[in-house]
């Protein structure tokens, strides 16, 4: 190899000199021509639009900065001198900003709202940061612990739960305990080997239905009024649950103990939640009628989105189910709700819901609106989740089946994590719509950010020609900042997902 068999005539050993770009392809003139004055028409468009943009920008700056009134304590400061046009009335905004944020929440208690906001931020930011670990734990905190914390913080807790509330919860938990062997041993074995327990639970269920329809009539025993039906239902369920747990531990061995212990932990957590809601933390009670402003906007939209997530997932799965009844019920709900305007749903929730409830049961106005918003957004959420589900290839289902996973195992462990991840941009999009739509609650008499500001604008002590424009400008900027940053986040996740899939 040492002696070359042929001569290389010429090899360039230096880089070729860089030539300047052709004449007329660089510089401001080219940039202008290429981007703004390609043709006569394009040039005209540039001139007209440019003039329009400059005019609007000038009007806004002139109004908001140059002519603006910056200090003052009442409307007199913002009244224009004779013959001049006044600018923005910033003292008005400064005076009202606290109310826009907190509504009529007592000023001394505003730290509670701030604390909730801070806690929410500290949970949401790591949740939305893709590289941050512990997503499961984070989600648990965000979706279960945080709402409870906020509920107690904002209302003041101390809900005065009755014995009946505790009894109902315990009864429900006991009833679910009867299903522990089913979880472990399968439907057939779980019920067959626990015949007595199953019968007892069944009898308790029938008694419960009877109780709902017949009404609770306490029976006098030895001079004491004993609610016979509820007590007997609880007793039956307790025996049944005991039998079920015994079967689980005996019949399934070590896994049985593990499942029973886990279930026990869940039950304890449920009871702990009850106690937490019942406890008196020394917080002053704040009626929901006092909530308002941005606080209410966030409460309504965040509750709506958190509540609609599980409902929407169930509806989406129902819509794709092979069982006709479930599919039809899901489709009907989704399509009916999606066909209705939110205003009519809110009207329905505030006017019709009280009619549906037993006489005497009365709901908080806010809670009624929340139910309406949650049902409304769950229909949209269902469609978003369905989109995610449809994007999962069939092979994933078949792979799960070949591993012997059951339907729910497949869904929870394989399909939903992937589908929800794909759906994140659209879920955020849903949240943006919901955030904007919360402004409609003012129709049913709740004062969110817009409602609060709207009532403030009619206040005689600040009535000037520029009060309304200033207020609307700030409101528009607040809403815009929230929605725009969320839509940027959606775009970011979408791009990230696309690049991950492209790999």
């Amino acid at each position, binding site marked *: 190899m040492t002696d070359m068999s042929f001569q290389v005539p010429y090899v360039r050993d230096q880089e070729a000199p860089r030539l300047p770009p052709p004449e007329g392809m660089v510089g401001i003139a080219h940039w202008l021509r290429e*981007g703004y004055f390609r043709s006569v028409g394009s040039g005209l468009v540039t001139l007209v639009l440019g003039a329009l943009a400059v005019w609007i920008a000038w009007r806004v700056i002139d109004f908001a900065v140059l002519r603006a009134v910056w200090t003052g304590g009442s409307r007199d400061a913002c009244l224009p001198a004779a013959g001049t046009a006044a600018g923005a009335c910033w003292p008005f905004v400064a005076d009202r900003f606290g109310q826009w944020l907190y509504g009529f929440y007592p000023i001394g208690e505003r730290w509670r709202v701030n604390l909730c906001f801070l806690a929410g931020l500290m949970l949401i930011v790591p949740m939305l940061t893709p590289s941050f670990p512990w997503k499961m734990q984070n989600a648990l905190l965000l979706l279960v612990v945080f709402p409870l914390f906020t509920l107690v913080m904002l209302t003041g807790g101390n809900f005065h739960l009755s014995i009946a509330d505790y009894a109902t919860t315990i009864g429900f938990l006991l009833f679910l305990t009867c299903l522990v062997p089913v979880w472990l041993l*399968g439907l057939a074995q779980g*019920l067959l080997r626990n015949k007595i327990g199953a019968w007892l639970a069944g009898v308790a269920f029938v008694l419960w239905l009877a109780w709902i329809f017949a009404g609770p009539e306490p029976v006098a025993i030895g001079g004491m009024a004993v609610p016979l039906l509820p007590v007997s239902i609880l007793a039956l369920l307790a025996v049944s649950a005991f039998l079920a747990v015994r079967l689980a531990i005996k019949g399934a061995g070590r896994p049985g103990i593990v499942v029973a212990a886990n279930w026990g932990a869940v039950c304890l957590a449920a009871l702990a939640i009850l106690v937490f809601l019942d406890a008196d933390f020394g917080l002053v009670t704040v009626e929901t009628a006092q909530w308002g402003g941005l606080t209410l906007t966030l409460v309504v939209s965040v509750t709506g989105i958190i509540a609609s997530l599980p409902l929407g997932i169930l509806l989406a799965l129902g819509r794709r189910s092979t069982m006709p009844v479930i599919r039809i019920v899901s489709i009907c709900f989704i399509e009916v709700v999606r066909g209705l305007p939110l*205003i009519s749903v809110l009207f329905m929730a505030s006017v019709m819901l009280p*009619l549906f409830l037993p006489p005497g049961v009365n709901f908080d106005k806010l809670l009624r609106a929340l139910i309406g918003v949650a049902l409304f957004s769950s229909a949209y959420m269902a469609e978003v989740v369905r989109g995610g589900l449809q994007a999962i290839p069939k092979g994933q289902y078949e792979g799960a089946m070949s591993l012997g996973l059951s339907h729910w195992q497949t869904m929870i462990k394989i399909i939903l994590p992937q589908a929800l991840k794909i759906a994140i941009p659209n879920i955020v999009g849903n949240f943006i719509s919901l955030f904007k739509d919360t402004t409609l609650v003012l129709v049913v008499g709740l004062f969110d950010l*817009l409602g609060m500001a709207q009532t403030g604008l009619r206040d005689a002590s600040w009535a000037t020609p520029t009060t309304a424009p200033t207020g609307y400008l700030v409101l528009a900027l607040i809403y815009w900042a929230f929605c725009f940053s969320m839509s940027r986040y959606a775009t970011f996740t979408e791009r990230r997902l696309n690049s991950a899939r492209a790999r």
Partner: protein
Amino acid sequence: MTKDVTAIQGDKVPMWNDPKARALAIQVAVVAILAVAGLVILRNTISNLSRMGQNFGFAFLTKTSGFDIFQALVPYSSESTYARALAVGLLNTALISSLCVVASTMLGFVVGVMRLSKNRLAARIGGIYVEFFRNVPLLLQIFVWYSLIVLQTLPPPRDAYDFLGLSYLSNRGFMVPRPLFGAGSSSGLIGLLVALAAAVMLRRWARRRLEETGRSFPTVAVSLALLALLPMVGLLLAGLPVRLDFPVKTTFNFSGGLVIAPEFIALFLALSIYHATYIAEAVRAGVSAVSRGQTEAAQALGLSPAQALSNVVVPQALRVIIPPLATIYMGVIKNSSLAVAIGYPDLVAVGGTVMNQTGRAIEIVLIWMLVYLSLSLTTSVFMNWFNARMKLVER
């Protein structure tokens, strides 16, 4: 081993492990739960209603409403029935929605094309428009248009903007001439129908000629001319039975003419501008979805840029644009219900008044559901039909 296998194959699957039986059981359970819940709700509702001394029924619709509606497309007064009031509301909903659908489509297409323009300023301004108006709640926009633009910026009737003495724009609304149709006006309608029929036939003939000879025909321009001219001809033949009632400026207000209420103007502007952002995004996505190769191939075939756009790019872009358009149009119809916030008498606003007067919550909500669901259904059926027509016919 063999025995086990035969045992598995031979035995019937136990009922609880049979997927069919399971599915049946689950569905029966769901139906049972829904039925129980429905019964409970029904029972509660009946007892609540009887406690309030009411019963369910639509008989109240024939009673006199007793309230006025400032904009009615059909004759209406406070002596009319509730049913007629609701019908007026429905017509107002239909009017504002259809006008906003048209306006937002036009504006949306312009902005969508602007965003794709090679002119960077146009693209940037289109982008700012979309990002701003899409991210501010519609209700806030309605308030802004209503209180700032319409009530504060426009002059009082005394100083109304005068359009050649034919129309006046003030904070009482836009006063325009009202057409009065005399006897024989139907000739104009007949002319319109004839023009429509002629346009359809012309289209068929032009297509056949295009397929047979390859020569094209300016169908759209000729059809538009027909549609504009034939009703005129019809009216002329009948001796011009249509007169215009012009608004007349009096000292403090106007008389005569047709008043377009400030609420209507504000709602129209807000709805059109808000939904145009969504349409612009749909248009942008649709046009970007057509690959550049299509345009280049069209150029290679010698089509002019205009021909390439109308014969190659737009038909393909429409296939992507139409499905989201259907959703947006339904959004326009639903969001027109925000009218209630500024007092434009649409179906929800009128229904709300009726509900307050009569306490008939269930009946009114049922009427709302029926109307909005049928409007949605009609829109989606129409858009599906349009979509099917536009769809690429594959081999």
